[in-house]
């Protein structure tokens, strides 16, 4: 089982290296190779989850290792699904390092399979946890898009065309990407909070109890809600939207790790 994880990790790292090679050389064949490796990684990653599910006897989304690994999995598949309908030039070279980084973090977390705490024995576990983490996947893509936007804009503003100008897509395309990812991510985030709340009512008898994770999820949700609202009404597009996508992702990361390690609470067995 660890073999699957190790192999997936190596494939992601390899895909990252090949994406970087493509970014520098811009040979189409190299990109095709990178994508094939990433796809193979995504497939193997899926196999890893299935195997772990069977071995554990419950949805493997209860430890830090599992959550982060699933985070990487959602990013990979969200990215690959883009390629099907919505293509962004040289997106892969920004996304694949982040996927690899997440996998490295997962690799260094404890991979032990703990028995499921009684409170988590529910059909809501797979629904709530997977939706919430998939939201993170899209927010991570929006983050990558935001970084790309700022890099590209910098070169256009400064009138010094370096490595990015010709390689990155137009500012307009990057802004569209931002909106696309945020909209999908926000939808999933909302669903994640709702399902969590329903589950909380069943498990603990209250929809909301201001557990730190809940609080921070709400804060994250409010940040993204503000971004989308401002975008639609006030025209927070482009540069500001890119910065906000990066800031929002910081909140996502804090909700994922900061809360667990710094604040504790009922979600703490996740980690």
């Amino acid at each position: 089982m660890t073999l699957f994880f190790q192999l997936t990790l190596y494939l992601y790292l390899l895909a990252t290296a090949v994406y970087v090679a493509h970014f520098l050389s811009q040979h189409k064949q190299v990109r095709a190779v990178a994508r094939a490796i990433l796809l193979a990684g995504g497939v193997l990653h899926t196999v890893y989850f299935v195997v772990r599910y069977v071995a554990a006897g419950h949805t493997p989304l209860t430890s830090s290792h599992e959550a982060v690994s699933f985070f990487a999995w959602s990013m990979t598949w969200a990215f690959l699904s883009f390629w099907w309908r919505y293509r962004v030039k040289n997106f892969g070279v920004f996304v694949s390092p982040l996927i690899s980084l997440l996998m490295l973090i997962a690799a260094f977390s404890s991979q032990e399979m703990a028995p499921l705490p009684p409170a988590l024995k529910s059909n809501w576990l797979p629904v709530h946890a997977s939706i919430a983490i998939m939201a993170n996947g899209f927010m991570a893509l929006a983050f990558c898009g935001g970084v790309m936007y700022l890099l590209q804009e910098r070169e256009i503003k400064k009138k010094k065309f370096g490595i990015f100008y010709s390689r990155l897509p137009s500012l307009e395309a990057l802004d569209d990407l931002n909106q696309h990812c945020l909209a999908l991510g926000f939808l999933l985030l909302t669903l994640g909070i709702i399902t969590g709340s329903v589950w909380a009512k069943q498990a603990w008898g209250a929809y909301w109890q201001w557990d730190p994770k809940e609080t921070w999820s709400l804060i994250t949700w409010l940040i993204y809600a503000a971004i989308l609202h401002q975008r639609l009404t006030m025209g927070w597009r482009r540069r500001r939207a890119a910065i906000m996508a990066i800031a929002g992702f910081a909140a996502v990361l804090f909700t994922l790790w900061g809360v667990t390690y710094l604040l504790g609470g009922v979600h703490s067995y996740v980690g």
Partner: protein
Amino acid sequence: MLAESIVIIGVNHKTAPVAVREKLAFSGDCAGPLLTLMNIEGCQECCFLSTCNRVEVIFVASDPAAAAVAVRGFLFAKSGLADAEAQQYSYLYQGMDAVDHLYHVATSLDSMVVGEPQILGQLKQAYREALEQKTTGVILNRLLHKSFSVAKRVRTETNIGGSAVSISYAAVQLAKKILGNLQDKSVLLVGAGEMAELAAEHLVRQGIGRVIVANRTVERAVKLAQRFNGTAVGLAELTTQLAEVDILVSSTGATDLILTKDQVKPLMRQRKNRPLFLIDIAVPRDLDPELNDLDNVYLYDIDDLKNVVDVNKAEREKEALRAEGIVAEEVVKFGQWLEGMELAPTITAIRQKANAIREAEVTKTMVALKSLSENERRSVEMLANAIVNKLLHEPMVFLKNSDPHDNPQLKLVFVRQLFGLDKDSSEQQPPRENV
């Protein structure tokens, strides 16, 4: 030598000033010149290329020296220049030099603006007309096809045509990087000078949605607007229009700034931060340089654009060097093909191929038949030898027989194709109608 029968005679922007080139006076039609050229004695194949920067005749002749004089005479017929002068203004390439030159033309390395894409299309058109008049044969068909594929190779393997080397085109490329698709975007031209017109032309060609022209004299604005199917407005409407458009090209003769940061700042809120690309090609400048500090506003003045072009030009020169390498490589390949297009090398190649097949098959069989005695083995080898020799006998006779009515090159091509001798170096294609 077959190679020496290929000749190119021509005139281009490097060898003759426009005053001379325009005297040659060839209109768009190629059929007339092609037929005249084919009547020149000893001219076996020809292709005629005429663009605004060059006139070239590519031909194959049995007596190249004599044909060259006649072709030059034809080229300069209408100019009234004597042959001595004509020689000064024209160039003559023969053999592998001609191949090298044609590849340079096709890949735009010989063009005024290196990397420009039109020349390839013009060369293809010239070839198409030659095909219609049936003036090309074995050699030119292959040579021209090869020149197209070399040009394609250069396009895909180098970045020779990648970046803009004119100011107006650089502006269009930037507009695309900032605004993406231009179809739903609009441009406001302030001042109706030549540069503005050129930029607008490029933008229209790239599919810009709407053109609005504002000018001090309204008649001029109306005139320019009509050309681009746009609308004309007075200069007083500048800020109103600016709330709507995506690109502004300013080229007025005003001595002061016509647009300042403070004027545009409130507009950006009104525009809901839709980006604004400002192009200032006026000298002295029309637009406040500080405008570039505003969020989502991108200001490029004439010097900025010139810098972009200079950088791109340097880049192009580097790419041109790589293209030269590709051309040199391909010239050698064509030389190899030409060498093979003689009788002796073709016979050798057929024999080599047959022997290689025979040896491979015999070895394979011997492995399976280990029990054979030495004598029996020899018999098998002799059998194989005999089959190969008997099979090759008739084709060899066919090749060596020189019937005066036959076209020997056609025969060679036919046999080479039959035996698949040129397979690895992308085979001879039959002339297609849709080149």
